[in-house]
């Protein structure tokens, strides 16, 4: 019964995710696109929950839907885009280039789908607070096995922050 429920939930949420992802591209108003992106992010986090990755699901909402998208919406509201959108400049060359790229992307997707088919979710065993996907398991992995990549990433982000501040600083401040 739980499996059936999970399947129904997956189909509904995945449909919402795909529909709002399409809506991002269709909408002319950038604010609607941003809102659809929030919809996609929220439904993705529900999908993470069905995969028993609670930590990733919560972080997905806090970081992407909560922080980054608020900044996007903030910027869109501040710029107050005009209602009539200027036509996007048509670049024939880029359009021709897009076809092979799309082909490669789709082929890649099918390849990945074929690869992951035999995989199933690991059956949770042992302490429920310490199975894969919980905060405990991710924290332990990050600060032991993957310590160096973790620290390097944080230094990289720090560099980006400092760079952004230097670029945004006005002369004479």
């Amino acid at each position, binding site marked *: *019964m*739980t499996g059936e429920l999970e399947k129904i939930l997956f189909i509904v949420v995945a449909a919402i995710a795909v529909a709002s992802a399409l809506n991002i591209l269709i909408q002319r108003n950038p*604010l609607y696109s941003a*809102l659809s992106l*929030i919809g996609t992010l*929220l439904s993705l986090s529900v999908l993470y929950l069905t995969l028993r990755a*609670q*930590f990733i*699901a*919560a*972080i997905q*909402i*806090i970081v992407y*839907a*909560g*922080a980054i998208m*608020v*900044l996007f*919406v*903030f910027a869109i*509201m*501040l710029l107050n885009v005009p209602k009539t959108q200027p036509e996007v400049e048509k670049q024939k060359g880029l359009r021709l280039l897009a076809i092979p790229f799309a082909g490669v992307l789709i082929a890649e997707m099918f390849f990945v789908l074929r690869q992951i088919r035999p995989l199933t979710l690991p059956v949770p065993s042992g302490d*429920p*607070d310490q199975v894969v996907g*919980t*905060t*405990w398991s991710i924290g332990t992995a990050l600060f032991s096995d993957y310590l160096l990549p973790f620290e390097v990433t944080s230094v990289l982000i720090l560099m980006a922050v400092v760079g952004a501040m230097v670029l945004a600083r006005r002369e004479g401040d």
Partner: protein
Amino acid sequence: MTNLLLEWVIKTIVILLILVTAVAYVTLMERKVMAWIQMRVGPNRVGLFGFRLWGLLQPAADGLKMIFKEDIVPLQANRWLYIFAPAFSLIPALMTFIVIPYGSEIHLFGRAIELHVTRMNVGLLYVLALTSVGVYGIVLAGWSSNNKYSLMGGLRSSAQMISYELALGLSIVCILLYSGSLDLVEIVNKQSVWFGHMGWNIFRFPLMFVFIIFYIASLAETNRTPFDLPEADSELVAGYHTEYSSMKFVMFQMAEYLNLITASSIATTLFFGGWNGPFVGRLPILGPVYFVIKVLALIFLAMWIRYTVPRFRYDQLMRFGWKVLVPAAIVNIIITSTVILFLT
């Protein structure tokens, strides 16, 4: 399975009803406390059959009045977003409460019922996620009203909430260092006595300072005075809900008071031992009573601050958030980790 599902549904409905009633009476409490601080009488007229009942039926009269107000959608407003914005701010406010434990376990109809709707091992992150999503209601209301005061209110609120969320999250990290769990039920269980090893977090060394940071940040998150810049009456008319009337306006008010209740409940859970208190081990029914008393005390504190402290200026607010609260929270994390390192 069906039994468990039924239990969840009943618990959710009961919590929902209690919360909605509590919101109505917190508005009455706000008016009474305000009147008391300002040496007035406050609402004391509304009663039944000629009995005044100390104005206890005031919320019912208010609600009835708001229902019969005209529901206006401005012509130039963005119609759908304008209609949905109150829901965007009310729903996250209602959803937060399901992870908060308000008692240990009572026996009813021959089965043990745990007094929390659900527990998850990312409970605290869930609360943070909902707070960060709650800002959209205000932002969208401000934008869709097509009114410059509303827009300014919405923009201010999003900037304020992003800034103070950081301090809020960082102050929660100190709690995590002590409790070692994100599960709110677990955090409460670790504060079963007043002092000492399993004592309330508020009585531990760096955590009393953390509470000050947490409380200031949560006042800012709930848009309470002195941080009510998004709806600063003297500059912005009513801020993001200037154009709203009737029940849509009520939904914003409800969301605001729900956020106050939730913030007080989270503070109770994290710092004041949740539902713990004397004799609660022998009489589990006392758990919810202690919980409500503590939450009411914290709500009273927020009201006290509201009618005592004047509003910040906007640049002061931002400077205070980024240059005082965030560094203070980071220093507290370092102190807390050092203390824990030497204790263990």
